[in-house]
């Protein structure tokens, strides 16, 4: 036993913990739970923890994965509860196991979203929104480290569904998690750029499940 994987949720208030802060939060959770973490060698040792798909601030997740390494065997069945007893609100560990696949095998993410519309009723948006995400081409401009680029959302956003709620709509879809990485915010940017009248006044997302390239649940 050396490499281990934890599946955890990051919801509610914890959604606002940044990726960088989360690394520290998690490290401290391990320390409080007296988990024998393995550290890197060298002058400034750091715990060997990595979060498979970093989450942007404000987005919730029910399906985060985190790889870490331990110095000696531990009771992996008992670990999630032990960690939960010393975790902040909204961070909840679900299971711990020895991973069989590398995180690079992750391809798709199922997400849910809340689209609030202040001035129109959700019902009137459902059809045009469905039509929008059925377009053959949805080129969205985005800023990357390498400057401005265009990403084709069609094909990288699948199975778009939505239903009206009191404040607007609840949406569901599957997005490409890696190669290319589709940040859920790109859905909003696409609307803003291509069909501004459909852009919600507020949107909030939550990751629900992770899949491999064949849409098999990834663990």
């Amino acid at each position: 036993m050396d490499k281990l994987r934890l599946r955890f949720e990051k919801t509610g208030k914890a959604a606002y913990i940044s990726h960088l802060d989360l690394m520290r939060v998690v490290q401290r959770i391990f320390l409080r739970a007296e988990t024998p973490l393995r550290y890197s060698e060298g002058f400034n040792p750091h715990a060997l923890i990595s979060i498979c798909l970093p989450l942007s601030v404000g987005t919730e997740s029910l399906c985060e994965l985190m790889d870490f390494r331990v110095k000696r065997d531990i009771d992996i069945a008992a670990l999630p509860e032990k960690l939960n007893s010393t975790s902040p609100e909204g961070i909840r560990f679900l299971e711990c196991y020895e991973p069989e696949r590398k995180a690079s095998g992750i391809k798709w993410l199922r997400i849910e979203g809340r689209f609030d519309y202040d001035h129109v009723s959700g019902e009137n948006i459902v059809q045009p929104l469905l039509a929008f995400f059925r377009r053959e081409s949805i080129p969205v401009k985005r800023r990357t480290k390498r400057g401005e680029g265009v990403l084709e959302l069609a094909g990288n956003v699948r199975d778009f569904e939505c239903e009206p709620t009191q404040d607007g709509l609840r949406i569901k879809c599957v997005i490409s998690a890696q190669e290319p990485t589709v940040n859920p915010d790109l859905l909003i940017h696409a609307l803003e750029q291509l069909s501004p009248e459909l852009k919600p006044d507020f949107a909030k997302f939550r990751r629900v499940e992770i899949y491999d390239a064949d849409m098999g649940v990834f663990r």
Partner: protein
Amino acid sequence: MDKRLERILPNVQKPARYTGGELNEIIKDKSEVKLRMAFCFPDVYEIGMSNLGMRILYGVINNEPDIWCERVFAPWGDMAEAMRENKMLLYALESGDPVSEFDVLGFSIGYEMAYCTVLDMLDMAGIPLRSADRPGLTPLVFAGGTSCCNPEPMAPFMDLMVLGEGEEVDVEVLRLFQRARDEGWSKHDFLLEAAKIQGVYVPSLYEPVYNADGTLAEMRCLPGAPEKVTKRIISDLDSVYYPTNPIVPSTEIVHDRVNVELFRGCVRGCRFCQAGYVYRPIRAKKPETVIRQGIESIRNTGSQEATLLSLSSSDYRHLPEACDGLLDWCEPRNVSLSLPSLRADNFSMELMSRLQKVRRGGLTFAPEAGTQRLRDVINKNVTEDDLLNTCRIAFEGGWNGIKLYFMLGLPTETDEDVVGIADLAAQVLHVWRESSPNKQRGVRITVSTSCFVPKPHSPFQWEAQVTRSEYKRRVNLLRDSITAKNVTYNWHDPDTSFIEAVLSRGDRRVGDAIEAAWRRGARMEAWSDYFNFKRWMDAFDECGVDPDFYATRERSEDEVLPWCRIDMGVRTSLLLREKHRAYAAELSPDCRVACSACGAQSLLPKGVKCDG
């Protein structure tokens, strides 16, 4: 979560500081508790959560099962703006409820530059700023913290102020308030009763009377006002509550580490230092307590860094024992221990090497003044030999950076003293040349100066601050005197120090100017991002307050001072004696060599000696 908040959070910097939900945050059922208090800290989360006093009082008050104390910090500018735009009231982190629904607001005011932020928080909470504009008993608005040792500048806004350490008095005030509320007392009746609690100052029971020249004729006692309000202390630090299971922030704060308190008070008696006087008498923890509380805190927080806190750590009698005990636990677990506020004179190199095994960056010393004469004036018992010796050991031990802190504008300072700072830095550089085993790495010697601010309850409380232009002249003189390449000189601008000087020794009229400055947009003035000198000057002007009257004017020894009703434990006659000795450049022994009978011991129970 509040819908407006949900919309705001993605658009502000560091949203995690506005959500609460951290580990060890205290949640109670609001329908079950009898009293709700908002503990308000007039600065951002990262500063407030680093404050030991706040953590202690949060724990103490929440130890009362039927009182729920929640945290409120000042939002950073972007958040404050967004909240105002969306008509969101200031809320407490634990429940998310608006502060205006609480029974009591308690502000912790540690520094004067936070005054405007206090007003801003009241305004953001939708609560009238002035005590007189809040006729009802609820909400009670009070303050504590070091700044309250001159309560007058904030007197118009506070219903009451507590002096000294809050562990006991805060709860006493809350319980009395609870009774008053349940029995339907008027606010005035409550305040009259509260004024009987030791450590409670009720501003509305005192009336300032001024002379024609603007000085105070008296702080008149109105019916029911005690002649003197004496601060409170905790006499036994071993048995008092200590937060060993504190909130663990989920986002980075300024001092993200475990605090281990060693003792309160200071044996030294540096004459410029307010803390050295207002925190007397000296009370230490047993080393066992220090070790136990340290280990418990590290264990409960998972922190990788602990720091030993006090005004002058090297004066802790049991320092080696406490350090050994903690290090035995910390070292195998890779927890680092740091020890700030060491003195140059009895600095133990062996200890430092053990503590700072990994990081061997810079060391910091505060000689405060450049010549022995001036160091004698301020009773800073550091000789040049002490300092140079310490530097020698440090350089030999591999350190290659030293920061030296000084003040300009100390009483009796001459140009010779200013140039003395450059000489001292040059000597430190010389010592480096002599002693460094590895000269290729070079050396960084940094000299910093700030403008001296005379503070209430210190022997220099009667002194004039130097003018800003005089400070700048001395800065230029020093800058021109520093010739060595390896010596860097940083000076703090005097504008903030000037405002701080006005606020710290201000009277009630200064309160008007604080409000005027806030109305012109002042908040978070301790941050250079937000500090605006002109705004202050305009505010003084608008209120007819002459800032020089407060900052740069020397007071006569018999002048009635705004804080004359406050007894911080040290007799005024001792402060005067120290002032006179300062002018004679005469040292006073520290408390260990000889007790000066300053008066602070009388705050301890009979038979308990100061400094054990």
